[in-house]
């Protein structure tokens, strides 16, 4: 469960201070599929990075599964990212010169998973996302959609219970984008994975069951979507 209370985030731009998030409070339960929308500069990615412990905030509190993230050191946050949180980025954020298998195994090097089990778990996840025949291929030999599947497999591999997807279909064509969204929906509905999606595309946000809209760093709407 994610609990954010009165989160404020400032960025220094030259001599001025720009407030990216203003008193943002929200709660996301386990198993939810949430989309965060807004125009460019609204604070969507900033919010997602804070939830994913990639970025700090200036005031407020953040509880993740009952643990206060504010006071956590880098090591503890890193452990959270390796075990609970998975990221799916717009540009895939993969190591292109390495194989699919290595990319998917990578998070487990920094987690508590035993070395002898790593390969088996990675292959299992790769097959789960439909890339069983691409295990030994280099990432730079794959299509955009396949790369994003690898990113999703990597996000799940260390036992992550939450996926943070920042414009996951941004670099994909519409059909491939739909395939990726269907995969995320399946992971949410069948495996209970919490999915937090950042997008500016309304049709993509329709896959979620809750839509939060940000504008100028504030939450302007938070609605459940009827299915």
């Amino acid at each position: 469960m994610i609990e954010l209370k009165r989160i404020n985030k400032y960025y220094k731009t030259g001599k001025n201070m720009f407030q990216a998030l203003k008193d943002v409070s929200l709660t996301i339960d386990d198993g939810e599929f949430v989309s965060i929308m807004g125009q460019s500069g609204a604070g969507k990615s900033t919010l997602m990075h804070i939830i994913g412990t990639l970025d700090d905030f200036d005031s407020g509190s953040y509880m993740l599964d009952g643990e206060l993230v504010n006071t956590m050191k880098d090591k503890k946050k890193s452990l959270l990212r390796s075990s609970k949180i998975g990221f799916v980025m717009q540009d895939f954020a993969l190591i292109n010169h390495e194989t699919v298998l290595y990319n998917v195994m990578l998070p487990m090097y920094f987690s508590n998973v035993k070395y002898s089990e790593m390969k088996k778990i990675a292959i299992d996840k790769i097959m789960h996302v439909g890339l069983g025949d691409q295990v030994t291929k280099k990432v730079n030999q794959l299509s955009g959609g396949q790369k994003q599947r690898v990113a999703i497999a990597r996000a799940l591999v260390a036992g992550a219970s939450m996926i943070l997807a920042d414009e996951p279909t941004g670099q994909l064509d519409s059909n491939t984008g739909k395939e990726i969204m269907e995969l995320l929906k399946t992971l949410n509905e069948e495996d209970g994975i919490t999915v937090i999606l950042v997008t500016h595309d309304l049709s993509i946000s329709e896959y979620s069951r809750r839509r939060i809209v940000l504008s100028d760093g504030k939450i302007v709407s938070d609605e459940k979507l009827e299915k």
Partner: protein
Amino acid sequence: MKKISLFFRNMKGNVLLLVILFITVSIMQLILNYSVSGYLYYNRSNIMFSRAGLDGGIYYINITPYDQSTVDKLGEIVEELEKDEAVEKIIKNKYFSCRLNMELFQAVLYDEDVYQKMYGKLPYGDWGSGDEEQVCAVVAGVMPQNAPVGKTAKLGVSIDNKIEQFDIMISGVISYPPMVFDMSYYSSVNMTADKFFDSRSVLYLPDNEKTKALFGDAETMGMEMYAGIVLFDDNATPEERKAVSDKLDQYSEVLEIDDIISNTKHLVKEKLLVTTSLPMYLLVISILGYMSICVITIYRKKYDYSNYQIIGCSKRSIMTLTVLQISFPAILSMALFVCLMSVLRSLSQKGIYTLPNLIFGYENILVSVLATVIVILSIVLVTYYMLKSFSPLQELRKMEK
């Protein structure tokens, strides 16, 4: 296992660079250790010479030993000076050829007081207490573990053109590599203590009445004595010293021991500066090389590092991985040289293998480790500075643009 696997996997693409770094730092280690070993030799000669209690004395040597008349006249002067009140004693280089258990040795009659101070504690056995029934001898130039310490040996000596056999006790052995004190070298230019030491097979017999009773005196042994050291009485005046020196100067070259000790100290300092300047220069080059490779590697891997952080690698782990990968060749080279120096030291002490004018000691190991630590510290500094403000989000935004 995981971290080791990740460590080696990450080195892909950098193998050639790492090999070059390894070669560079190994050359530096080689020259550094050679310099240190040379310094250790000169330093030991200085320590031994200074320890012997020869301060204030004079060294004389007949530089025309083929001229029998000068040898005879010098011998007469030395005999006369031995009775001089200003002279405490004259240490003459008395030596003769012999066979010890059928092996060819040079036997040296040594001054018990001076030599025992000079050499100090022996690695095996001792110089003998003097209470033993047999004459006690100390060997040099024999592998210490092979020396028959505590055993009786057959000594074959030519006396009056006849080979005589004597039983002697081998009471100790000089450490390896042997630095045998030899008063038969002369240099007119800045004579130093290292010139007095040589490496060969020698049998030290005490120059005392017991030995004389066994072999006879110098004349009987046919020993030519054309070099020695005069030690003065504490009450000798400068004029008396000068008078002694002038007498010896007629048929030999005379050098002040204090000048020799002073020259040696100066030489040791010089050796330290001159012979270490090249290794220090190479160390600086190595450090600059490593720092450059460190910067290039981090720039190349920034995108990979941002991925690592996203998937759960802490910044400290990234820094550790980077430092270890780049310093790996230096660590490998250090391990190689520590092993090599340890082996050479061990072989040298056992007498199995030595190199001329080089001593291998724990100082070699210390210096090898220190040089590597300095290289690693430079890498840590660069890595810390470059990754201090590293932000995976900024790197990802750059990639998106």
